[in-house]
């Protein structure tokens, strides 16, 4: 991720990814009974109905399982990014399969269908979402192709 030292960055929400961190990781849950992995963190396991989970840091890299491109501005709210039809920029969305863990839904740093292929290798990064009332840059997570 690029860091502008003049602008303070804050996460879109606490507890979604490790922060602050030079190499952030998504935070998930692992069932202490059946080892099922979930994202984001949650109590209760949808696989075995177990009631005990522990927070884990998920892998940073994986393969793209499927994808689309958000071609029109999402309704705001709930969307907090740029929803102005005049300046809206399409963004990719997909599921990245983290080996041995889970598939996570995520924004992609690429939006050109010609650049995106099922099965491509990807890694976690952060992208700017909007500037809040305090002038801070709010960031959320995304996956970027590994070149």
């Amino acid at each position, binding site marked *: 991720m690029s860091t502008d030292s003049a602008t303070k960055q804050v996460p879109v929400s606490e507890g979604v990814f490790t922060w602050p961190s030079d190499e952030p990781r998504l935070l998930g849950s692992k069932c202490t009974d059946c080892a099922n992995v979930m994202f984001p963190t949650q109590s209760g396991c949808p696989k075995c109905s177990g009631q005990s989970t522990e927070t884990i840091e998920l892998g940073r890299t994986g393969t793209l399982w499927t994808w689309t491109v958000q071609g*029109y501005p999402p309704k705001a*709210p*709930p969307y907090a990014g740029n929803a102005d039809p005049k300046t809206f920029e399409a963004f990719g969305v997909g599921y990245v399969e983290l080996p041995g863990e*889970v598939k996570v839904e995520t924004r992609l740093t690429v939006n050109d269908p010609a650049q995106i292929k099922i099965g491509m290798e990807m890694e976690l990064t952060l992208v700017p979402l909007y500037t809040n009332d305090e002038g801070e840059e709010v960031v959320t997570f995304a996956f970027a192709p590994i070149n």
Partner: protein
Amino acid sequence: MTTDDVAIVGIGMHPFGRHEGVSGMDMGVAAVRTACADAGVQWDDIQFAFGGSASAGSPDTMVSKLGLTGLQFINVINGCATGGSALFSAYNSIKSGMFDIGMAVGFDKHDRGAFRVNTRASGLSDWYGESGMALTTQFFGMKINRYMHEYGITDDSLARVSEKAFRNGSKNEMAWRRKPLSMDEVKESAMLSYPLTQYMFCSPGEGGVALILARGDQAHKYTDTPIFLKAAVVRSRRFGSFEVMAPHIALEHNAGPTVDASAAAFEMAGMGPEDMDLAQLQDTESGAEIMHMAENGFCEHGEQEHMLAMGHTEIDGKFPVNTDGGCLANGEPIGASGLRQVYENVLQLRGDAGERQVPNDPKTAYTHVYGAPGISGVTILAK
């Protein structure tokens, strides 16, 4: 008890589309009045009602216009399966022996554009919507993209489904979008959620449908053409399925609620996919109709490409699908959408579908709804 326990004896519909100055509730009231007239009953003959609406008010308040008769009226909210759930509840209320005649009604009136998702009400955190992922359209784009990759479905099939929908809609006076569109027009419309374009998606809309159900052994009191409800099933998702609004999916795969609901409905009816003469399948977008053909058991995965090219799912084809234009031509007022499918099947089985009547006197018909948060409803009708 036999599977002829419950019959649909009256149907009513308010046209789908956009109706300035008409509330969703009033569309529901209009549908109820039409259904009562169709069954030849008065409102005070109706012993119970299940009503569904996602965005247009509490259905039970419609009694202030229909008449305060004291009937049991229960509101149903169950995502995109709201109409199917109202019908399932009405079915069981008669099948249990508790009542002789009652009603399932659904109506809605949504804002223009894609559904605005309330992330918290969906059990999701605010960051999910703030980050731009709380859009049902993304799910449909991602599901069909993966499906095309796995099973060799092409853009031509996506466009063919829309072309068929608008052609069928042009023959349906109740439909919203009645102008036929060519495959090229469908493909060249705005790309909303790759690989799906504007005319491959249905839109949230407005409308109302009411169905009157009665004990099968009393059905002939109301109609010469009772249509029997052989099965009504609603299923939620199981671990490992790929559903709308899911921040994660498990690595292991499960086929999903449509496959489960379909299998349970066929078992309940004592029939199989080969026994069905036509079907209305959830077509939130054109890819959904394609995937749901296989998930409901009407073909193998990947066979749809050939079936569509050969016209098998046209009104005069081997297995007509979405004869009224489906969600694509009718729009999706959530509370009414599943009931709209059943309304169409009743018309088809009665032989009253006019210009879009399926030929050769169909005897059986199937409906399927799917929606957030991973729920499917199926009915099987027979005469």
